[in-house]
């Protein structure tokens, strides 16, 4: 008889699930990790060194197939012909949204989840973020402060390896960094321009990223091939598949099941505890149940929320652990795409060698020292500089040998700032179950209602202005500012639909990502977020997951769950 009882079940194998698996097994629990998607074999599925001519459309994308099967996924920035196998099939994985308000839900259903193709940018939140809701009377107060999470940021950074520059900024706390990657010469020009003109307010640094600049815990330093998001055979960037899951496996206490779609969490009304999960084998469609004393939902913000909605009981008719009615509310993402681009004159005799898989960062400067008149919160800039390659040939005058040979020299240096802004938690931005639609495995799907508010739009407009200012201060030419109209979801930082809070009447989770209603049920992915900050959120999910796991095991050992 196959085992069907574990100490803990972790739903999801991505950036959060991997950490739950590692921390729970290392603390002595027998853990079952359930992944809805297929297994990934790095030898077969990682394609970072495969030349472009081995792809049918040479990187231009399989348009006809994308239109039929990946019409949502293919809109996302990281989606490309080479990595389409890391994104879900939109026909098998439907959801719905308000007709006039598109929402793009970008998903990876496979072992490792979106940790395989994530952006690897790694920034801590600060008390400027944790105190913001309380200070402004927005949403609910975070039940934690920076001091609560700081040791867990240390713990995560120490394990995954984060390269970056220490800056001593209160709004962007330093971490345990490996040596930073280097700015290129045009980026140095812009850094100096900003320091000259905005030195007391703004600064430019190299991105802090979960990519190794030296050997770290048995993983090799980055070899600068470039496209991390296609996989990395040397595990030089962090993903769960190559790092946390192997650590969990090394304990001998991990069981990993792929193709296992969790349809619902099982709940015992008498004992008032979650007892396990109901799973559909995605290939055979057979259903079975697994039991555990502890359940961690790490399926991604919206998938975890969907599972709770689909786990309604007579005591929780609106979704398991939803006595507050807040489940599904306060959906956030990061706004994206206010910025500017320009040409950096000179430096014709300089090039970059190697493909640095990381850009620049301008930490938030709005509403840090002074209050901005038009909007609250702030944004950070990513981006960087580079020289044009052969691609400019299609829009350059000329034919023949001279045309061909001119393209051998790189084009001018150009620099782009690209802003990522904080989205406020609005109760009206929300997901609910859509009982009319089911996915390929018969599981009811989500309906999303989301749109940017006034504060987000004002930030986006400001990004274009401040980005252009910084380019101008750096001597850039041909500056063009832009405000892209990216719909919610395209930041791929969707979060907040089972928020943490101090009051069980207005929040789903407490400060340890434990549901207020069901003590042995935890949600530690992006669903837990009370506000969004403007920082890339993955490290916060990892730190909160590790912290929740330590707390849960402690409670379990003291028989308090």
């Amino acid at each position, binding site marked *: 008889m196959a085992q069907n009882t574990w100490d803990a079940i972790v739903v999801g194998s991505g950036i959060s699930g991997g950490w739950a698996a590692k921390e729970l097994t290392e603390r002595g629990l027998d853990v079952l990790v359930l992944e809805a998607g297929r297994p990934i074999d790095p030898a077969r599925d990682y394609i970072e060194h495969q030349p472009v001519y081995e792809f049918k459309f040479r990187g231009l994308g399989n348009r*006809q197939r994308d239109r039929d099967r990946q019409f949502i996924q293919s809109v996302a920035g990281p989606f490309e012909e080479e990595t389409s196998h890391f994104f879900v099939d939109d026909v098998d994985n439907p959801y719905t949204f308000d007709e006039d308000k598109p929402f793009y839900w970008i998903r990876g259903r496979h072992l490792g989840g979106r940790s395989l193709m994530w952006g690897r940018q790694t920034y801590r939140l600060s008390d400027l973020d944790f105190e913001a809701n309380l200070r402004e009377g927005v949403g609910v107060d975070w039940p934690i402060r920076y001091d609560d999470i700081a040791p867990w940021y240390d713990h995560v950074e120490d394990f995954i390896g984060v390269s970056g520059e220490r800056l001593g900024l209160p709004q962007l706390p330093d971490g345990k960094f490996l040596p930073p990657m280097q700015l290129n010469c045009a980026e140095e020009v812009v850094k100096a321009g900003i320091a000259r003109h905005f030195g007391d307010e703004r600064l430019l640094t190299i991105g802090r990223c979960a990519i190794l600049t030296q050997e770290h815990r048995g993983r090799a330093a980055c070899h*600068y*091939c470039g496209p991390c998001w296609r996989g990395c055979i040397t595990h030089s960037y962090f993903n769960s598949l190559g790092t946390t899951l192997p650590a969990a496996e090394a304990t001998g206490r991990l069981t990993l099941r792929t193709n296992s779609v969790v349809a619902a969490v099982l709940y015992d009304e008498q004992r008032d505890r979650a007892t396990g999960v109901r799973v559909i084998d995605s290939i055979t469609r057979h259903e079975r149940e697994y039991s555990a004393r502890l359940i961690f939902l790490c399926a991604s913000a919206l998938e975890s929320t969907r599972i709770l909605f689909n786990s309604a009981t007579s005591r929780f008719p609106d979704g398991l652990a939803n006595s507050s009615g807040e489940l599904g509310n306060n959906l956030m993402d990061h706004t994206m795409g206010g910025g500017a681009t320009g040409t950096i004159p000179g430096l014709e005799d300089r090039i970059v060698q190697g493909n640095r898989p990381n850009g620049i960062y301008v930490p938030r400067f709005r509403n840090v020292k002074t209050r901005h008149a038009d909007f609250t919160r702030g944004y950070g800039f990513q981006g960087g500089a580079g020289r044009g390659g052969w691609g400019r040939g299609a829009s350059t005058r000329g034919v023949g040998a001279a045309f061909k040979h001119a393209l051998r020299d790189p084009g001018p240096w150009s620099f782009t700032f690209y802003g990522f802004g904080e989205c406020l938690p609005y109760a009206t931005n929300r997901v609910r179950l859509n009982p009319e639609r089911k996915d390929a495995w018969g599981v009811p799907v989500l309906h999303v209602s989301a749109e940017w508010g006034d504060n987000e739009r004002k930030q986006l407009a400001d990004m274009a202005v401040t980005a252009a200012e910084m380019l101008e201060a750096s001597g850039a030419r041909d500056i063009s500012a832009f405000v892209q109209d990216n719909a919610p979801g395209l930041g791929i930082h969707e979060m907040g639909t089972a928020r943490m809070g101090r009051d069980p009447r207005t929040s789903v989770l407490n400060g340890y990502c434990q549901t207020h209603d069901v003590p042995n049920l935890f949600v530690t992915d992006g669903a837990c977020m009370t506000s969004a900050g403007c920082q890339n959120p993955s490290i916060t999910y990892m730190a909160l997951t590790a912290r929740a796991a330590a707390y849960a095991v402690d409670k379990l050992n003291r028989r308090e769950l």
Partner: protein
Amino acid sequence: MQRRDLLRILGGALALPALRGLSPAEAWALGRELHRTIERLPAGRVLDEHQLRTVAAIAERIIPATDTPGAREARVAEFIDLMLADWYDDAGRTRFLDGLVQIDARSRVTHGAPFVELTEARQTALLDELDAEVQALRDADLPTDGHFFQQMKWLTVHGYYTSDVGVREELKWTPIPGGYDPCKAFVPRTVGES
């Protein structure tokens, strides 16, 4: 066992027993090789023989063989045929095919012969006129997408620089560049002008 031998065996009855003996890494390498072979589609799914010759000639005049191979050796015409068959929608395909008709019409009016029969110098001169038309649109901030030559040049440039010979011989790309230098002194490549 050599990969070449495996490929040959796969064509025959011995395929299954041979496959069973492979390690996962070998099977994967083989799979990729097969995939590559199969996807090198026979040209002419959309373009007939004359159109293919015309496209190949235009592409070679845009990016000719010099000290490195040109568009013809990079099989750019076959790539364009594949794009027309499996990538473009009807409107994009029609725009391209109409453009080919017009280029021959222009060639006949000016020189009394279809494009492929012109001397290389006359072919280049005709394409340079088209290129100047596109540049005039660009200079006037007008969209260039509707112009056949913009489409043709984009396909040629992309097809060439993403081809096997374009990547390896012209760009000299390597999958692992060996470290990172953020500000390296740049020495222009030797230009093979004649």
